[in-house]
């Protein structure tokens, strides 16, 4: 047999088994960026989902039905996200969709799901206005608008901050949204902003911004950045002589073990806010982190935790859906059940959807101590 024959036969078998196995499950589409520069966020999200599904299926599924995830790569590009969504809705006939990774893609793809009357559940879209797209759009990504003002206010009280400098990535909607929230919070707390500096995605050198900030002597530096950039900024700031007494305050982007992994000792004292953190001692989280480490041999980050919780939230709603066999009706009743989810307890604590289908979850203010996030204030 020639190689090409083998490949053909193998792929036929693959397609056959895939289609057979699909037929017997509750299908949920997962559209995340799995290749390209955004993949570093998309992959942990996918991991969170797969871990949760394995656990649920191992425990017998939902009312006896197994969940089958159909995972597609949307590369962090809006056209790809739309294509994947359409494939899920019209060809794979999924019950609901998770994703996409970026808010930008969500703005493009979520209207498709909403028009197709299919639930779309975002776990990493933080931009304002995502759920306003329509009644089928849900998310459990932490609303930074709730937590960050608390972070700022507590940091101000506990550390006696008066002057701050702000740094953020201005070509990314995640970090830009975070900045907008910080800016309001800083104004509300009457803090003086000595400098606002920006950088771009993929930047590695922040020395110019930091040198400028150093000259202005702020009491703290607020930094809306994703973890790789955040870690590098902190590290470079310490190298350039900004002392450890000047704390870094960040949003969701900080909340990853990568922060200390990359920045090392420099990350000590960095402050962030989130309902979830790696070393939270609640039982659910402990077992989640353990299972995640075992399966993927790395630490979960906030994105993975949110994805993990999202799948359990979805399962909770699916449990209550009375399946009619009519996909359109089932999708709509799933939407209705999902909107009713209240007081779900997950790895990130108690969770409810508010009337806008946004996350309602209590955030905690965290600080890095001995390379780990610990609670700075409940």
């Amino acid at each position, binding site marked *: 047999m020639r190689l090409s024959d083998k490949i053909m036969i193998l792929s036929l078998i693959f397609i056959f088994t895939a289609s057979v196995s699909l037929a017997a499950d509750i299908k949920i589409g997962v559209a995340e960026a799995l290749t390209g520069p955004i993949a570093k966020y998309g992959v942990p999200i996918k991991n969170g989902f797969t871990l949760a599904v394995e656990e649920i299926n191992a425990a017998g599924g939902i009312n006896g039905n197994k969940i089958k995830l159909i995972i597609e790569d949307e590369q962090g590009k809006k056209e790809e996200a739309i294509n994947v969504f359409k494939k899920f809705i019209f060809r794979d006939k999924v019950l609901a969709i998770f994703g996409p990774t970026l808010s930008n893609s969500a703005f493009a793809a979520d209207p498709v799901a909403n028009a197709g009357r299919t639930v779309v559940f975002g776990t990493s879209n933080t931009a304002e206005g995502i759920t306003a797209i329509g009644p089928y759009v849900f998310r459990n990504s932490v609303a930074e608008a709730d937590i960050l003002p608390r972070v700022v206010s507590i940091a101000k009280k506990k550390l006696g901050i008066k002057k701050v400098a702000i740094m953020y990535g201005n070509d990314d909607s995640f970090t830009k949204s975070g900045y907008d929230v910080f800016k309001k919070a800083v104004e509300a707390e009457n803090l003086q902003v000595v400098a606002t500096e*920006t950088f771009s995605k993929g930047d590695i*050198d922040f020395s110019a911004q930091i*040198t400028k900030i150093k000259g202005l002597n702020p009491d703290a530096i607020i930094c809306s950045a994703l973890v790789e950039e955040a*870690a590098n900024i902190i590290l470079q700031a310490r190298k350039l002589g900004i002392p450890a007494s000047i704390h870094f305050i960040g949003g969701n982007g900080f909340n990853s073990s990568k922060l200390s992994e990359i920045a090392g000792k420099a990350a000590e004292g960095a402050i962030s806010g989130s309902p979830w953190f790696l070393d939270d001692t609640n039982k659910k989280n402990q077992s989640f982190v353990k299972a995640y480490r075992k399966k993927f041999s790395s630490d979960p980050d906030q994105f993975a935790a949110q994805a993990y919780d999202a799948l359990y939230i979805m399962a909770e709603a699916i449990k209550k859906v009375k399946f009619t066999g009519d996909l359109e009706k089932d999708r709509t009743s799933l939407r209705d059940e999902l909107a009713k989810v209240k007081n779900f307890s997950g790895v990130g604590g108690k969770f409810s959807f508010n009337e806008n289908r946004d996350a309602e979850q209590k955030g905690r203010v965290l600080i890095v101590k001995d390379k780990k996030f610990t609670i700075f204030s409940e």
Partner: protein
Amino acid sequence: MFLQQIANALALGSVYALFAIGFTLIFGVLEVITLAHGAVFMVGAFAGLIAVTRFNLGIIPAILTSMLASGLLGFIIDFVAVRPLRKKKYHHLAPMIATIGCATIITSISQGIFGAEAYRFPFDFVPTKSYEIGDIQLTLLQLVIIGISFSLMIMLILLLKRTKWGKAVRAVAENRRTAALLGIPVERVFQITSFTSSALGGAAGVLTGLNFNAIHTYMGGPILHRGIAVIILGGMGDIRGAMAGGLILGFSEIMSVAYISSDFRDAISFGLLFLILLIRPSGIFGKVPERKG
């Protein structure tokens, strides 16, 4: 503060320059803009990382390992994607598109192996010493990077000026047909150039990884974009031009953040390149070709 910013600009600019000299050398000799140079840069960084974490090599051996690995990669890219296209008269951009294909394959494989996340060199490996001179903070690492970059660049220039192979390379860059008539093994020169250029790209990758602690599959993208700007600004194929261009870009990025606004850093840097090109249509060191009949 101004002096500190100059130090910052030097450190950033020297990495740009090191990336760009290999890039421009390939263009000067092979007349191909190899868009796989960013991928080579990334592979160099990972090779250095593996040399350190798996084989416990020191900084210099790690750089040499990485240069060897990325040099070989450059040789393979040339052999597979560029060589078949120089034999006949094809669209002059065909080799460039072929290198895009290579870059896609390499990054895709790299993601398969290393995933999408960022890595860094071990803490105890990276020198953390820093010197305070007046107001300026200079880390030992920065000095090492500036030092290694410049010595590699000077070595390259000496190789080109002094050695037999260097002369052959320059002859081929000048006119490959005449060089072939003079008995220079042109094909061999192409291979050596690809190897050397890519090795320099790999060295830039390791140094970037050391200084900026962000080694990941997609690290080649932003620097490729800037590298193109640098080599064209300096004058295509001109090594001094690439060095000057790298430093100019480093300075314009740092200084626009320092004294204008970080919001407009890229617009200022690229706008500046745009203006320089309008004044010097073939770059700073490029010869202005007179139109001839």
